């Protein structure tokens, strides 16, 4: 019964908030309380394995709780809770909030239902509901751009889900049931071409949702157009449902090694996913580098980081799988942290444009720390959690014999480091613009989730076992060898990583650097309102000497294999459809004689075809 309780909580929250949306205090208390209850219930379910089936209306809805679904359920509930606390004081648009909360909690509900489903039809129904409510969240601001971005998303995901539905129905007839177990036993004994058909049909929907290259183009527009708190939530969790789908597909439905599905001697499904992961890691990350908007920059990273997770899942050795799963939770924690920081900056300064911000470090120290912790994690630098999962991924890809994938992962990391440096510098470092003199830190309730996440990001960096413990349960649930880990890292037998040592070394280096800094005396401290130059002409407005447009060649290259080709492809499909449409419309030209001829001709066609019977 735990399952039904936990599903009812967000559902109840959605409807209660729809009713109480107009009174602010009641609304926020309810939202925080119910999402807290949701988190509590999901924590309580840790380690349980139950299944449950319910006859709702005309369906047999079967759900089951296993380590994998718990892992995702925990993430959904935990990050929902933090987002809700944060958004209680976040002043986004005041109007229409009841509907907004409704859509948000319906989305949370459908996500919880997706991870708990143990039947593909249930999975599909909630998957569609999730897409629908994601669309509602995306178009919340209501501008023309928002709607076109949202429509891009929903059209693509509808297309993928119709394909999904077709595969589903065909599986239903072949396997006799859509239960995960029955499907996986059927897929084990069927022939290769059908298996590949099923795999491709299902993986399409998941790749769309997880925004993997080249199906990622919808994400930056639609995510960055949502209100920031929900951009945070969407980035941290929504796309990861696609990865949940891929894990489900590979490890539960296919319950086997992808490399056994060979299309030719060299090409198997594992390589294909690996290549997709490689492109997803590299190209979006470098695109992020070119962005001028903080939210947009980070949404590009949320595509790129998905590539790392996909890499781990595709490679599939114990260490790689652990790395991929670990990266999902790490990523969610630090990207949420960064977005909460951006949200704070946006709320106080009114903009997320990187070229207009700067120097906010003293005004908003907590947000700065939040973003700092977040980007250290994002770039995969010790001592934060991102380092551990990336380390696992690098090591496992090389060990499994994929040096080029490892190279792609390194390249992606370089792009990440470059872009996050730009990111934090342009918001928090440098000279302060006069218009931001009165900016102050956000209220405590908004700082609280940032503190929690900072602790989490660092704690998972020092004690990865906190996350590796549930992950090893997942691996055992898949019937695979789990990664052997120690409290503060990876066990000696599996490749030895001790994060405590690394933390000590980092600390020592910090002390050393501080000592050098303090001993050396020649420092000039420039006020944040002063302007200083290195041989350039500056005025009151430009307080700071800077250069930009550093990487035109790189930019051209990235653009050519990213925006240009994808948008051109999508545009040409749209244009093609429109041309077909114009052409077909001409049939209805309005000439009555021509219509009469049409009718007669069609009659003759029917007559002719009946002739052969």
């Amino acid at each position: 019964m735990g399952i039904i309780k936990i599903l009812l909580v967000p559902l109840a929250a959605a409807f209660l908030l729809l009713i109480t949306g107009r009174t602010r205090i009641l609304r926020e208390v309810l939202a925080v309380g119910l999402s807290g209850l949701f988190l509590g219930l999901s924590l309580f379910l840790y380690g349980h394995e139950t299944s449950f089936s319910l006859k709702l209306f005309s369906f047999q809805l079967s759900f089951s709780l296993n380590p994998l679904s718990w892992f995702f359920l925990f993430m959904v509930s935990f990050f929902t809770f933090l987002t809700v606390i944060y958004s209680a004081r976040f002043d986004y648009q005041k109007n229409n909030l009841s509907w907004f909360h409704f859509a948000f909690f319906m989305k949370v509900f459908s996500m919880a239902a997706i991870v708990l489903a143990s039947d593909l039809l249930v999975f599909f129904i909630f998957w569609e509901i999730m897409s629908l409510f994601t669309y509602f969240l995306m178009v919340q601001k209501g501008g023309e751009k928002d709607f076109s971005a949202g429509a891009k998303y929903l059209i693509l995901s509808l297309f993928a889900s119709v394909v999904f539905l077709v595969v589903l129905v065909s599986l239903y007839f072949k396997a006799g049931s859509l239960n995960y177990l029955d499907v996986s036993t059927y897929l084990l004994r069927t022939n290769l071409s059908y298996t590949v058909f099923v795999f491709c049909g299902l993986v399409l929907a998941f790749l769309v949702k997880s925004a993997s290259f080249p199906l990622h183009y919808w994400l930056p527009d639609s995510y960055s157009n949502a209100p920031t708190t929900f951009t945070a939530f969407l980035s941290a969790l929504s796309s990861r449902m696609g990865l949940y789908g891929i894990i489900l597909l590979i490890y539960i439905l296919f319950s086997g090694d992808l490399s056994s599905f060979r299309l030719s001697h060299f090409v198997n499904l594992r390589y294909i996913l690996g290549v997709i992961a490689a492109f997803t890691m590299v190209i979006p990350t470098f695109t992020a580098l070119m962005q001028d908007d903080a939210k947009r920059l980070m949404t590009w990273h949320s595509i790129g980081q998905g590539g790392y997770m996909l890499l781990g899942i595709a490679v599939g050795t114990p260490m790689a799988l652990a790395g991929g799963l670990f990266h999902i939770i790490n990523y969610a924690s630090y990207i949420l942290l960064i977005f909460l920081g951006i949200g704070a900056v946006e709320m106080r300064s009114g903009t997320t444009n990187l070229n207009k911000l700067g120097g906010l470090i003293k005004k908003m120290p907590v947000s700065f720390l939040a973003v700092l912790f977040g980007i250290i994690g994002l770039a995969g630098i010790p001592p934060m959690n991102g380092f551990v999962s990336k380390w696992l991924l690098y090591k496992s890809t090389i060990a499994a014999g994929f040096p080029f994938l490892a190279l792609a992962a390194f390249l992606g990391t370089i792009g990440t480091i470059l872009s996050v440096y730009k990111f934090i510098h342009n918001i928090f470092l440098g000279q302060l613009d006069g218009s931001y003199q009165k900016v102050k830190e956000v209220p405590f309730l908004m700082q609280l989730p940032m503190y929690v996440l900072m602790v989490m990001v660092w704690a998972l960096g020092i004690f990865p076992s906190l996350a590796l413990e549930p992950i090893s349960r997942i691996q055992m649930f898949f019937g695979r060898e789990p990664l052997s880990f120690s409290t503060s890292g990876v066990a000696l037998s599996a490749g030895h990583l001790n994060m405590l040592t690394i933390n000590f070394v980092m600390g020592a280096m910090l002390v050393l650097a501080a000592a050098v800094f303090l001993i050396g005396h020649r420092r000039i401290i420039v006020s944040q309102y002063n302007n200083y130059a290195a041989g350039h002409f500056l005025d009151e407005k430009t307080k700071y000497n800077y250069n930009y447009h550093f990487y035109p060649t790189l930019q051209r290259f990235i653009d050519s294999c990213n925006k240009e080709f994808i948008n051109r492809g999508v545009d040409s499909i749209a244009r093609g459809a429109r041309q077909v449409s114009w052409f077909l419309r001409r049939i209805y030209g309005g000439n009555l004689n021509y219509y009469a001829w049409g009718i007669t001709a069609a009659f003759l066609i029917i007559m002719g075809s009946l002739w052969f019977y």
Partner: protein
Amino acid sequence: MVNPLYILVSLVFFALLILFVQRFSKYFALLATAFNFYLSINILIAALKKPLLVNLGGWKVPFCISLFASPLSAALVLLVSLVGFCAVVFSFSYIEEERNRYYALLLLLLAGSSGVVLAADIFNMFVFFEILCISSYALVAYQRKADSFEAAFKYLVQGSVGSSFILIAIAIIYGLFGTLNLAHIARHISFPLTFSLKVALALLVAGFGVEAAIFPFNFWLPDAHPAAPSPVSAVLSGLAIKVGLYAVLRLIFTIFGYPGVFLPLLFLALFTFVVGEFAALAQGNLKRMLAYSSMGQIGLIAAVMSFGSVYTFTAGFLQIFNHALAKSVLFLASGVFFYQGHSLEISDLKGAGRKNVLVGAAFAAGIFSLVGLPPFLGFFSKLAILVSLFRTQGTLVLAYIFIFLIVILTAVEAAYFLRVLGVLYQKPAVFSAASGGKKMALMQIPVVFLGLLLLGLGLFPQIVQKIAYFAASSLLNKAAYIKFILG
């Protein structure tokens, strides 16, 4: 009370009453359709247990006029009365001029639709079909604008061609068998068909195909549906074309007892599907877009049904229900927008959904149901269509082509519908609504009711599913049809 005759009698009676009394026309219409709705529910409940047969005129079958309410007919009659009732309620404040003629014609349109569905002999089917067609020509021209006259005239010409096809076919059949009773005709027909029967079948498909809006018999549709007042468009798009399709299917599968896939219809229906959905993509006028979308949907329904198995019929009926309700919602909602903003160009509707919260929500429900998203009814019909296509045996290639088209065209459909939805909720709004007060409230009721029905039936699809299954089996069972009517 459970007598299909009362449906026709009450509708025609009130239509004439309205013409003679000249007053209270809308209340009479409301009374007629409400009574009709109540009656048709009872008839459906009775027909699901045992089909109803009424013989008129004191002669025995096959010489009398018989009305036959099989589950299929009863279900369609219920649909007619439901949408008709909603259209009448909507018209209460929407139609302000020449109410008498309007309501009389609308009631006749409903009577014609019910009559075609209930008639058990081919000539009465034709007569009711003519009532349906003629009243709809007049209703299309009701607004007395240049384009509505043009649309009505084109509709009239093409409809007359169709009617004459049907009449010739009836003449051929009567000449062959000397009977007009459908069951009696059915008893005489066996496969392979003789040449004259082939001609008759082709004429019937083409003739009723004009009303069923199957390509290329549907040239009238994109002009006629938008030109009519919105409640009439809802009835024409939601019901009238399905009545035409009913006639086609009843004749092909019950009377002629065609075994297996009916290829000519399948090909034309697939064409209709493609042409309709793609043509809707480039429309700038909301009602015109909806009309093309109806064309696409009727193509989908006809294509599913021409596979000729009980599963595809069930799926097709689910889609008929879904489309009738959803398209009525969309047309009625567009009527609300037109009433307020006096324009149906999509670009003029920016922000219209925000001004009318409930109507906008119902509009969205209609869209999501047509695209096939859970938890709306459309999801189950889409699921049922795919399931039934995987069940068809022998013609797998065609089924796969069809599935491929469904996949592509769902995306196309989503593209044009989401464009409209985006415009409806866009900021800044250009749509300015004069406050309608009580009138608006009355117009919102049927729209919201139908929207909620889509959601409710989506949550409890087994009700519709059961009806659809019975309807499908009654369509396919030639022997039972003959046996029940002729005894």
